[in-house]
């Protein structure tokens, strides 16, 4: 449902928000990101407890996760594989030797007293994500955002402050969930580029099944580094949505520009977002010394020099390639629909199956596939206001319906009605299409001569025309689209059994007749 809404309204929403931050050309903003991305593994990074976010507190923890003495970490190879996929997808150089380090600080949700991360020898370095004017709507033709490094590390637990009873609760379910931290170079020139980048990154990790990509439950969390006119760098920690990033950047840019205008300098510090303003968390002087040192309980990760090509062979076309593929023949989707499919793997899979049935097996035109999946089937969920669940009508069934429409065995209107009926009555989903057509009496009228149908339709149309003189008048004055209203009424009256072009022709005849009479 949410997905469908997004598809139908996306462009409008983004345009409404884009204007927000106006950069003053005299104050150049430099900005880089650190993106913490939870990996979609079955188990945690160094233990066998499950990696799930939706469980009761402290139910997915092992002895290691809560830091019991005498436990020893063991690297989960699935997490390593996903981090390598991400590295290859971002065109990084994979280190043939990398290792883990300990980053020390005390916090109740940090059960070891340190986080296991990769400070000295990260898994990958020096990659890029390229933003494109045609696909991402940026002003330049291409914009390269360099990736400085990718490191594999543990997530921490969660601390929940209850101000009502003054108790601190700690949930260690998240502790030791695998993360990759992706660090970009400060290559962003505008807020728009950052938003486009984040969206693109989200699509990439989702598409490759590296991460759920959901910012709302913390699977992706972002730190932003921002400086103005080459001044000191300020880090804003832990932003959990694009709107938070926007608020943080707007408020921080304005704050820094304000300081510079007053002739003051910007202090190097770490800030957080409270409401829509950034607030100081700690200054440079209070900065923690993390006392990094190699974690000798974890062996070095040594990789075959051919690992990059091996991994590349396991991953499908990357999202940009896939969007370009879908938006050209034989798929010929609109660009925004191609992007939508790539952002929603499940729908893309469905689309490919439907395409195979309708185009490859039945030799129908691709426009039927594109129109029926995107507008009719997905649109129907929206219309009925029910949660999207593609299993209601399997691709085979929808393929049948679409083929029948293409062969004019049933009218478009009947088919639409059929889809709505199946969605509103789940018991229909098991029944064969022929039976359903029978059940709802949706078949094209058969065994009646076309003259008889023609006469009946002519009668129906003139009745409707008489009942709606104002509509007719409008059309005559040039509002040609109003004819759709009349066609709709006629379709309803005939229960969609009559081809709409036939109805339209009759109305056109009536309208032209009026016109002629009038002149």
């Amino acid at each position, binding site marked *: 449902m949410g997905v469908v809404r997004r598809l139908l309204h996306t462009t409008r929403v983004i345009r409404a928000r884009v204007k927000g931050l106006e950069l003053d050309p005299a104050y150049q903003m430099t900005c880089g990101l650190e993106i913490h991305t939870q990996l979609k593994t079955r188990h945690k990074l160094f233990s066998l407890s499950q990696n799930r976010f939706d469980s009761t*507190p*402290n139910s997915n923890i092992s*002895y290691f996760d*809560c*830091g*019991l*003495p*005498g*436990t*020893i*970490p*063991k*690297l989960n190879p699935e997490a390593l594989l996903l981090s390598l996929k991400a590295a290859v997808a971002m065109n990084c150089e994979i280190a043939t030797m990398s290792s883990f380090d*300990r980053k*020390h600080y*005390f*916090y*109740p949700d940090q*059960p*070891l*007293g*340190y986080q296991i991360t990769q400070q000295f020898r990260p898994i990958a370095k020096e990659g890029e994500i390229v933003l494109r004017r045609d696909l991402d709507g940026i002003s330049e033709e291409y914009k390269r955002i360099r990736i400085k490094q990718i490191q594999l590390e543990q997530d921490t637990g969660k*601390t929940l402050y209850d101000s009502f009873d*003054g*108790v*601190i*609760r*700690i*949930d*260690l379910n998240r502790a030791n969930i695998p993360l990759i931290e992706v660090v970009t170079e400060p290559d962003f020139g505008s807020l728009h580029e950052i938003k486009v980048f984040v969206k693109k990154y989200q699509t990439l990790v989702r598409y490759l099944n590296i991460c759920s990509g959901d910012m709302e439950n913390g699977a992706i969390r972002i730190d932003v580094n921002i400086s103005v006119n080459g001044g000191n760098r300020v880090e804003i920690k832990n932003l959990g949505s694009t709107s938070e990033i926007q608020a943080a950047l707007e408020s921080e840019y304005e704050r820094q520009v304000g300081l510079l205008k007053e002739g003051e300098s910007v202090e190097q510090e770490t800030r957080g977002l409270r409401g829509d303003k950034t607030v100081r968390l700690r200054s440079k002087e209070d900065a923690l*010394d993390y*006392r*990094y*040192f190699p974690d*000798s*309980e*974890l*062996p070095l990760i040594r990789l075959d020099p051919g690992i990059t090509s091996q991994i590349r062979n396991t991953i499908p076309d990357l999202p940009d390639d896939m969007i370009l593929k879908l938006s050209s023949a034989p798929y010929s989707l609109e660009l925004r629909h191609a992007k939508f499919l790539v952002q929603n793997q499940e729908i893309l899979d469905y689309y490919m199956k439907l395409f195979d049935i309708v185009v490859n097996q039945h030799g129908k035109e691709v426009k039927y596939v594109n129109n029926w999946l995107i507008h009719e089937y997905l649109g129907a969920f929206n219309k009925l206001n029910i949660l999207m669940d593609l299993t209601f009508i399997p691709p085979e069934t929808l393929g049948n319906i679409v083929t029948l429409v293409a062969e004019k065995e049933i009218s478009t209107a009947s088919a639409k009605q059929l889809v709505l009926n199946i969605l509103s009555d789940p018991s229909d989903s098991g029944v064969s299409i022929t039976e359903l057509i029978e059940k709802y009496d949706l078949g094209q009228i058969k065994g009646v001569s076309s003259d008889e149908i023609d006469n009946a339709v002519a009668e129906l149309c003139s009745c409707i025309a008489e009942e709606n003189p104002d509509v007719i008048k409008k059309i005559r004055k040039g509002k040609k689209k109003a004819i759709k209203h009349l066609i709709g009424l006629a379709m309803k009256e005939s229960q969609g059994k009559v081809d709409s072009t036939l109805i339209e022709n009759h109305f056109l005849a009536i309208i032209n007749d009026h016109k002629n009479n009038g002149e």
Partner: protein
Amino acid sequence: MRLPRTHSIAQIEGITVFRRGLSTRADEFNSLISEVKSKKHLSEKDSVKPLSGTSFVAKDNIAFPQGYTTCASKALSNYRSPFKATVIQSLEDAGSDLIGKANLDEFGMGSSNVESYFGAVINPAFANEKRIAGGSSGGSAAAVRSEASTFALGTDTGGSVRLPAAYTGVIGFKPTYGRVSRWGVIPYAQTLDTVGILARDIGVVKQVFNAIDQHDEKDVTSIPEEIRSDWSGLPKLADMKNTTVGVPEEFLVEELSGYSRQVWYDTLNSLRKLGCTIKQVNIPQIEKSLSAYYTIVSAEAASNLSRYDGVRYGFNSTDKPGTVHDIISRNRSSSFGQEVQRRIILGNYTLSSESGDHYLKATEVRKMLVKELNQVFSTQHMLFSDDKPSSSGCDVLISPTYTSIPCTLDEYHNMNEENFLNNYINDILTVPASLAGVPAISVPYQKQNTPEAKIPEAIQIIAQHGNDEFLLDFTKELMMRF
């Protein structure tokens, strides 16, 4: 999860009750922290297993689910481990019976076994005076010496099994790093921590070692099967006559007492009589070992002990309010002993960004030391196969185990007040084998046909990485000739 409230005093008193329940003989030396009730009935006939009929105590930094696992620290005085260390499981599988958890220097930090939350261990080798048992596995050594158990498990980080064994007159064996599982062994400095065996009889040491010398997939530092099978091709001890014994010149340090010099000299003499080739060797990195060792252990300890914040388990100071950092800081300050706090501070300084890269430099010393040992020994280090062994190399190296004899408790306290570094110097003979991860054993030295010496004398024998069997066979032969 709420921040746990302070555990009641009753729980801590529970330990005292435990300790009161101990047999008077064990209690006399304060060797045990808690007793483990035997699961075996005396009538049970279980004689088919290799260690049937034996009993053992385990140092209290080795996790066991019954009772407490305290590390002799107030910080873990109420801690019950939900799981069992692999090494204890292996011994139980082999038919031995755990009867107690032994006293130690808090978290293994010390070489006297005075720095324990449960009090100092008294050396059973001295009849009428209170002398230190050595540490940090002092409780294990005292239990074996006083015959409370057949053998004991200790841990050796820089000599913690060998030194107390030497001071109490028993055998103390530190195997090659990685041969015995560390799963369930609470780390002090994990790149050095090695489970060791203390016993009165070398045959027992060998049998126990056989039972615990196994790969453990739960411990990533456990040596894999492939390398273990390579070791089976190592030369066996054929005849003492054909062995070459190395004497590292660098062990002849100023602090070495005349007493220890004499023991060393006597041993070499005996070996010469047996037909061994005695060879002086040079291992220059030994001189840098002590400072490298203290750099590494304090850094690793500071890191490993960060988890004891009293939040999830362990000692929790009060119900007094405060920020989370106040609570953590209060818990730690009030539950770690002086020596532990000293090493944590030292370690945190070592790791701090402004102090430089001491840890990495110390690691370089370790690498160089291994390289030098490879040039001295006759066989290859399996983990550094690019160094080729020399055909005229040594089979074992020999030195005394300690520089000076065990002091009295009073002397210890006076010395410690004067300069706590005094206690660090005694480790100079034992740390090189730890840094290199090679096997080493301390054996009581007693001349034939002489009455039992008043002060236990001991020598240390060191072998190449993986040559544990050779070392034990050599030791057995040597002990038969004493």
